[in-house]
């Protein structure tokens, strides 16, 4: 949010751009009580409020499913587009090429992304569109009442669908191999981790994937499910502590040397990672991130934190050489070539 100016005398109960938290709220949720998705919505509100995101400068995109309903439940002053099942990436691509100056959140689920939308997901990452992609991952189809999704664990049993016999797709792994430059996993029940990750994701110049385990209280919240609250709370193993430092802000956290790693993002903000055990995962090392995920899968560990970051890869807007003025704002003078160009062109035809 490099464009945000700090007011001279900060008023009470407003953020950096003078807006109260209420201006970041959405409609009342119609999801089940206790749904992980509502908790993520609340964390999006917090992150955007604290960053001072101008609500009108943000677009919310989604596909179809419980997760995809949630953009209605945060930031009503932002434009929203609830598109088709699995097709949010293409809609977001078109909209953000038309206006690359806007920030964008895409909310999807494990059905929307891992099955019907898997192709569009991979191609979105390949093009590196500047989009905060939030995967609300609960391993189950909610709106159609409890079928397995492609991220469900092998051998898992749920009431409606029975036993799942197929290997799960790890969307963080898929993201890294597709060239995504910001990949993190987190847990809806851990706002202290989700909020700073969201802030860091907003500073990324390409697609930032946040795979957030978000329990479905109705269809997949039995304690032995790896997508349940109980499992998440008991098994959440952070690979790093994550602090987001805005551009021009001082790093005030004091860590012993060797304990931290700082990564400067494209907009000048920094993320500071603190190690949580003896080994320090280097999130700028792509192979190390892949190895970490593979080891976690073998040992059935629920690792969370920033897995991989590469702030340098150009985004799609740079690739398309989009300038200061968004394509959507050009008028006839810029869009319609002059009459003499047509005469010249016609004269050059056979």
């Amino acid at each position, binding site marked *: 949010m490099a464009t945000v100016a700090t007011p001279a005398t900060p008023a009470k109960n407003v953020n950096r751009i003078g807006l109260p938290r209420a201006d970041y709220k959405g409609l009342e949720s119609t999801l089940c009580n206790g749904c992980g998705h509502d908790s993520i919505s609340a964390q999006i509100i917090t992150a955007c409020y604290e960053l001072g995101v101008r609500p009108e400068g943000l677009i919310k995109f989604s596909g179809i499913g419980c997760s995809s309903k949630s953009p209605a439940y945060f930031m009503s002053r932002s434009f929203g587009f609830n598109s088709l099942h699995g097709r949010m990436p293409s809609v977001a691509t078109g909209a953000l090429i038309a206006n690359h100056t806007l920030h964008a959140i895409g909310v999807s689920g494990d059905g929307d992304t891992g099955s019907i939308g898997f192709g569009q997901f991979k191609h979105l990452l390949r093009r590196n569109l500047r989009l905060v992609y939030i995967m609300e991952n609960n391993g189950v189809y909610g709106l159609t009442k409890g079928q397995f999704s492609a991220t469900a664990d092998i051998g898992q049993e749920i009431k409606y669908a029975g036993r799942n016999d197929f290997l799960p797709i790890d969307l963080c792994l898929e993201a890294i191999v597709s060239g995504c430059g910001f990949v993190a996993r987190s847990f809806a029940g851990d706002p202290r981790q989700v909020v700073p990750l969201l802030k860091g994701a907003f500073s990324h110049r390409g697609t930032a994937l946040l795979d957030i385990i978000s329990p479905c209280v109705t269809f997949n919240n039995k304690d032995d499910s790896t997508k349940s609250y109980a499992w998440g709370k008991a098994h959440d193993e952070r690979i790093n502590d994550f602090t987001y430092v805005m551009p021009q802000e001082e790093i005030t956290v004091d860590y012993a040397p060797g304990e931290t790693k700082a990564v400067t993002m494209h907009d000048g903000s920094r993320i500071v990672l603190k190690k949580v055990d003896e080994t320090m995962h280097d999130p700028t090392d792509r192979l190390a991130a892949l190895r970490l995920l593979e080891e976690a899968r073998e040992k059935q560990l629920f690792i969370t934190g920033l897995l991989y970051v590469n702030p340098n890869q150009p985004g799609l807007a740079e690739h398309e050489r989009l300038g200061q003025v968004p394509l959507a704002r050009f008028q006839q003078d810029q869009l319609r070539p002059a009459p003499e160009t047509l005469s010249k*062109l016609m004269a050059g035809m056979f």
Partner: protein
Amino acid sequence: MTMLEVQERPVPLDDRQPIVNDFSISVATKNGSGSQTANTALLRALFKMGIPVSGKNLFPSNIQGLPTWYTIRVSHEGFIARRPRAEIVVAMNPATAMEDRKSVEPGGVFMYADDLKLQTDRSDLAYYPIPAKKLSQEHEADAKLRTYVANMVYVGALAHLLSISLTEIESALMFHFKGKRKPVDSNMKVVRAAAEWVAANLEKKDPYRVEAMNATSGLIMLDGNTAAALGAIYGGVSFAAWYPITPATSLADALNAYLPQLRVDPATKEPTYSVIQAEDEIAALGMVLGAGWAGARAMTSTSGPGVSLMSEFAGLGYYAEIPAVIWDIQRMGPSTGLPTRVAQGDVISAYFLGHGDTKNVCLLPGSINECFEFGWRALDLAERLQTPVFVLSDLDLGMNQWMTKPFDYPTEPMDRGKVLSAEALDKLGGFKRYKDVEGDGIGWRTLPGTDHPFAAYFTRGSGHNEAAGYSERPDDWENNMARLGRKFETARGLLPRPVEERVDGADIAIISYGSADPAVAEARARLAKEDVKTSYLRLRALPLAESVKDFIAAHPRVYVVELNSDAQMCQLVRLHAPELAGRVQPCHHSDGLPLTARWITEAILKLEAA
């Protein structure tokens, strides 16, 4: 294809009057042998001689090796439809030579590469063996290029026999090779050698020849896909997404070729456009809808299978009311069908594309000029009507070279439709996205990023009220659909009117559209010679104009001429005028090839006799 066996009638070769500027040439070659250079050189040379001409490439879905034919129609009367058989057949492909020989019009010419082992048992034909291999070996040092320049042998041979100007062949090659002297010279060397060889070795035994005319001055030659791309560029297209598919690919190619020349901001050197090759047609239309929603002038180009894939997004665009332009360069279906052959087979599928109650605006270009005009007009209509607009071209129009008048600069300023600015929102104190303020069924929209607290709204394909809020209320649903109905009627009034020609005393009328037009025009002239008067209405858009009903009412018998198997437009015309449906008869045909005047004439006479 020219596969029909003809009745062989012996014609005394010597007694015939010369036949000038009125015949067809069909050249049979192998796909990928480089014959396009030779064929377009012939076509362009004839055009530059001032003779009305058309060229149609009848090609296989293949990179190299399968048979391909190119037909050139020469007509002093200006008829440019395909003819079912050619008077002059050039056989360069051993695989089809026997059939090619059978296909020649009675009394015609059969020119063939002299290494083909052929029976010459049709006594009505003039046979001209040409030493293609020998001459190309003698005159092209580079062995790799010999296959290509071998085709120049028939160019030179035909030039001599038919009196086609070598100077114009050279200027055609100069255009083809973009002024590069070296390839022009090496090709011309073979052309001249062939012409000289024919002069020295063959006796002319046929009546066909050309004479310079003045019927093409001021015209240019172009294909419809290039015209469409240029139209879109002058219509201010700022975003295009596409996926490769025959026969639509050349439209995106033309965008990519001309946009960098025409649409780079002179001050900033930055492009005012973006073109994305999507991962499939679903994503292509998804991107277009995203861009159109955000305020870009957005389009895609595809063909039938792509249209099928776009179905769900088309429904979303219709119901969420998002501007988009979809060019459908129609090809043979159903299914994969014949990707390199033509049909007008997507009329019904495009018109009703989407699930639930959906009907889409469709434009029907019938000429190269209309491909250009509808290129810009479609973008205006899409933003005015806030809906996907289909443009139904086809392979014949899109990929073949046609004579055309140079394009007129857009006659109207760009229409950006109903868009509210931040200032307007200040004055209004808010807005409802789907409220029918003016009674035309079209709501006002805001663009993402509009800097005003009241600007935002939530777009969805699910049920919504006029404030764009989620709603499952029956009255909200009914009101919304009724408003979409009003919008559809608004569209009907805004679309290009049909082109009508009523003939006094005509009991018969023809309704047609798109690339069928030249064949219909010629068929009407043929029918007139038989004292059968016909009126003609050429449709240019769906939904059908009200005036179509008056036209039908004025004629006892109306034939809907079209290139598909299910008489698709005929069905729509009958639905449009149910009380007159009894007068409306199908006259349809679909074999993968452009319609011919002969077929239409015979079909109508047969229907009349029935």
